[in-house]
């Protein structure tokens, strides 16, 4: 039995205190990080509820339902930030990275508390695959939102379209790692490849903007 709320309080309180002493980007990042952890615990509650309601097996829930629920919760937090604070493109990305990192950190903390961390391979998979995947899908979502804003096409169709892309990436990852063997190795490498691709796109778009 894991008391996830207690873990959340334990990690979030020091971070919340840092908000009193930071400004600008650091302040935003800390706030987004805490938001990411809250989004993670809420997603877990909803996934558990939908799992019982749908009658799906645990495996089917994690492959088919969790990506939709988790990405939906991340999108809602991003939309809240975008519509309430009307941030610039750079700030959208900062917030996305914070939420993604907070989500991944809290999820990893809970898994490691449950299963322990004696195996280095397991810890690496959790950190470098699942953890990176949560950051990657959110950065992709933020990048899409930034570009939609830049092209004045910040419509429902555009936002849901970009969100659907993140859900599919997340769903594909969960599907690939659900079976041991080559498919799982492809799955584990996928987030890192996506991260590198996004890094290149990010660099190119900065050069393009400067031009």
């Amino acid at each position, binding site marked *: 039995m894991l008391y996830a709320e207690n873990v959340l309080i334990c990690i979030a309180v020091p971070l919340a205190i840092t908000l009193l002493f930071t400004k600008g980007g650091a302040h935003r990042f800390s706030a987004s990080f805490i938001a990411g952890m809250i989004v993670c615990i809420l997603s877990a509650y909803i996934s558990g509820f939908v799992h019982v309601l749908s009658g*799906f097996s645990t495996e*089917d829930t994690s*492959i*088919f*339902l969790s*990506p*939709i629920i988790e990405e939906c919760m991340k999108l809602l937090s991003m939309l809240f930030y975008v519509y309430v604070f009307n941030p610039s493109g750079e700030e959208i990305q900062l917030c996305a990275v914070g939420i993604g990192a907070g989500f991944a950190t809290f999820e990893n903390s809970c898994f490691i508390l449950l299963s322990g961390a004696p195996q280095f391979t397991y810890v690496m998979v959790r950190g470098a695959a699942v953890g990176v995947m949560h950051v990657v899908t959110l950065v992709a979502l933020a990048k*899409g939102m930034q*570009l*939609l804003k830049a*092209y*004045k*096409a910040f*419509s429902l*169709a*555009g936002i*849901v*379209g*970009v*969100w*659907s*892309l993140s*859900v*599919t*990436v997340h*769903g*594909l990852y969960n*599907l*690939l790692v*659900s*079976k041991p063997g080559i*498919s799982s190795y492809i799955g584990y490498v996928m987030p890192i490849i996506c991260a590198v691709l996004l890094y290149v796109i990010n660099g*190119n778009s900065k050069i393009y903007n400067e031009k």
Partner: protein
Amino acid sequence: MSGLTLLDVIATSFQSVILVVIIAKTIRLIVDGKNVFLPFFFMLAMAGFLLSDLYWIAYDVLKPDTRMPIAANEIGECAMILLLSAGLDVVLKDKKKIPGEIVFTFLFIGANIVLWIAWSGEWLQDILFGIPYIYFFELLLRGIRSRGVLTWKELWFAAVMGCTVLVLQIPLLFMKGNLFEFIKVVCFAVMFTLMAWLGVKSFRSKDYFMTLTFFLWTELAMFLCPEPYYHLAFLANIIVLPMMFTSMKRELADALC
């Protein structure tokens, strides 16, 4: 893995290769071009389609001959339709919405959704994933009308043919015997005649809206077809992809002129 699933994997892999080439060419267009808006949305849409294909292949390989509890790959297709629509919405200069067109798109795609539900029983999923098609079809219809790609006569012809296919699909759900076989042949003959006609029109006009309409019909036909008609519609769906890229490039050239 059954022969049919294997055929499906091969066909989807082939489509994925075509999509990778198209995405690469579109990225090149973005890097070289001045107007990156349309290629950017097109590239994202094709990426969604590619992800959907990869999901399909991965599922068929990992869990062969089983039905997905939720067709998660449809989210990728949904992304494609929505992103194509987001691009079209900005390209489309005529913002005037005609109530008759909106009603027709609702009824036409609505009837398709009803047929999908009757076939699969996944009502919530079919309704949710059907909604983007309504928006997409409405934009296409508005674009074709306002740009004068098809005459009113041709529009009526396409509408009548499309509706005939949907009406003929109804008895196929519960009929058996010789009459079933007869209606099936007539239904798919009308469906593929319309597909061929849309293909010729798209090829001749090279209009972006027309080509996307052809693409939409191949998609809808795939959802309504059993084997072996399904693979025929799939083939048309693959053929239309380079045509979409060409028409997008032409649209871009027209916008820059």
